[in-house]
């Protein structure tokens, strides 16, 4: 696939697999072959949302990505204030075309894992379904603990399709899952992957640390934090005000306003786009500034960093 950050995807199939779960298959709108995606990858869909001027961008894990079925997602209907999944459940129809990012993977399987332990909570099962398929193909030993509502047990069991001899455990609620026992029983060389509510993933990480697991063997789902809260940028010399949207970098907002800040890597590594700051609190996300420079709050890398708060004044 050539550099093409945005995909146009057509809904090829959509079906309810439970009252709150909808499975959606997406293919390239032009019929072309989709970019490959490793187990654990996600895409970001642009979804129309009532009451929002701009489409919402929601990240969804790919349950599978293959030539025959395209990209498959399973979406849980959640809090109606986040309109994205509401749209998928109520309005999305076969034939609809959606804009999506190319797949991105921040939750990839470790190629050298001797055993993979997977712990899922609720809809956190989605990347684990992709992992199971990959691990079966690879012949890597795995163990799965999936926690869910009792109402979802049968649906999840069907999605997993446990084969004879596989260590698959479904738990109706947290009470029958003991992280200390499960983590404590693993052989050396095991990598643990957790996906689900933050409290579950925090608990797994804390238990693994308490048992002396190396941090490199403990993984949790991550969609990345490219954007953040919107804020207002003020140009110190002119007083001009520029809005930095939630899904936009400060550098992009400056460029959109016709201010050429000068940049090279656009990834927080090279230091070329550094700008002086007059006022405002910073959230540094770069790999360039020294600890002292960060502390001073006098300089920022606008390609990745943001304001911690609703305004920032640049000394330019």
């Amino acid at each position, binding site marked *: 696939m*050539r550099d093409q950050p945005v995909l146009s995807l057509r809904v090829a199939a959509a079906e309810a697999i439970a009252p709150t779960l909808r499975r959606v298959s997406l293919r390239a709108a032009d019929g072309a072959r989709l970019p*490959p*995606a*490793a*187990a654990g990858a996600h895409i970001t869909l642009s979804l129309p949302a009532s009451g929002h001027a701009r489409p919402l961008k929601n990240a969804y894990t790919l349950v599978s990505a293959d030539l025959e079925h395209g990209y498959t997602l399973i979406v849980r209907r959640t809090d109606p204030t986040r309109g994205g999944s509401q749209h998928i459940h109520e309005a999305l129809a076969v034939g609809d075309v959606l804009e999506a990012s190319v797949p*991105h*993977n921040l939750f990839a*399987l470790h*190629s050298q894992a001797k055993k993979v332990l997977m712990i899922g909570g609720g809809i956190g099962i989605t990347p684990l379904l992709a992992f199971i398929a990959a691990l079966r*193909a690879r012949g890597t030993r795995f163990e799965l603990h999936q926690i869910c509502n009792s109402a979802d047990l049968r649906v999840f069991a069907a999605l997993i399709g446990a084969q004879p001899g596989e260590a698959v455990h479904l738990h109706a609620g947290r009470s029958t899952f003991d992280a200390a026992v499960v983590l404590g029983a693993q052989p050396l060389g095991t990598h643990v992957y957790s996906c689900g509510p933050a409290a579950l993933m925090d608990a797994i990480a804390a238990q693994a640390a308490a048992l002396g697991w190396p941090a490199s063997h403990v993984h949790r789902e991550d969609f990345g934090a490219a954007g953040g809260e919107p804020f207002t940028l003020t140009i110190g010399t002119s007083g001009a005000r520029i809005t930095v949207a939630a899904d936009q970098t400060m550098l992009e907002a400056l460029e959109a306003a016709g201010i050429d800040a000068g940049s090279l890597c656009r990834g927080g590594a090279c230091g070329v786009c550094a700008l002086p700051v007059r006022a405002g609190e910073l959230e540094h996300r770069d790999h360039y500034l020294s600890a002292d420079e960060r502390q001073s709050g006098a300089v920022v890398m606008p390609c990745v960093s943001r304001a911690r708060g609703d305004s920032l004044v640049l000394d330019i």
Partner: protein
Amino acid sequence: MTIAFKPDETFRGDFRYANSPAAILRFPFPFDQDSYMYGINMEPHTRSTMGGAFAAAFDVDEHYVAECAERAAVLAADPGRCQVLPHMVEAEWDTLELIMESLSADYPEHFTLEREGDDWIWTNRPLSLHQRFRFGDPSSLPQSPFEYIARQAQGDFTLQDQRDGTLYMDGGIATTQADWSLSFDLGMTFHEWHGPVPLAHQKGVFDRALSYLMRVRYGHPARRLNWTMTVHPRLDTSPENYPVWGAGPHHFDGGQHRRDAAFAGRIADILPAAALERAAVLHPRLSCQHR
């Protein structure tokens, strides 16, 4: 854009090699400084719409046919110049897919990729290749998928596996290297294989470069211009062949020869030999771990 290939060029022996004026004009420089030091000069691979070396994902120039023949000769003498660890087999197919899609889209008059599901037909007109194969089935190609396609591209490649917060060089092909050895570096981490580079570690260059590379995203390629100088247009300046190229009468062993004056009159000779690192950085995760 039709390229007038120069298939009779050589990179050893009689060194029949030269750049046409057009090839020099499309070179991705000028050098904008008077002195150079290791730095973080990675940047998004923004396509040039004016032609030149930045117009394509993988650049093909007038030396393509001759460079592919040179690569074949090096591999015939030393098959160890291409090695891939077994867990990187998906990255091999990713590389093949990426290069075939890119070349056929960027140079449709020279390369064609036809696909019917996993049944693919690849046509490389400059090298007179027409290959039917089944994507995912290595027995349907004359070499491993990575070696097969890397033999049809200019510049060296490495396959890097992202794990443990770093990149491991778990595969590659190196026949045009500036004195580094794939056999030696295979399986090393990013900091290990850059270990011998002077000065740059202390400047934090590799820490920042690694952070950047680990965040390169699929569909968002990056590039880095890199150049070396050799007296002759020899592409195979490998440690394995050091006795062949390192000890000859044209060897520069530092000292006064490194002064600018020693090189000043040679710029025209040096430019053709400068090796552009073809910096289509394969997305580490997807290229290494897809499916």
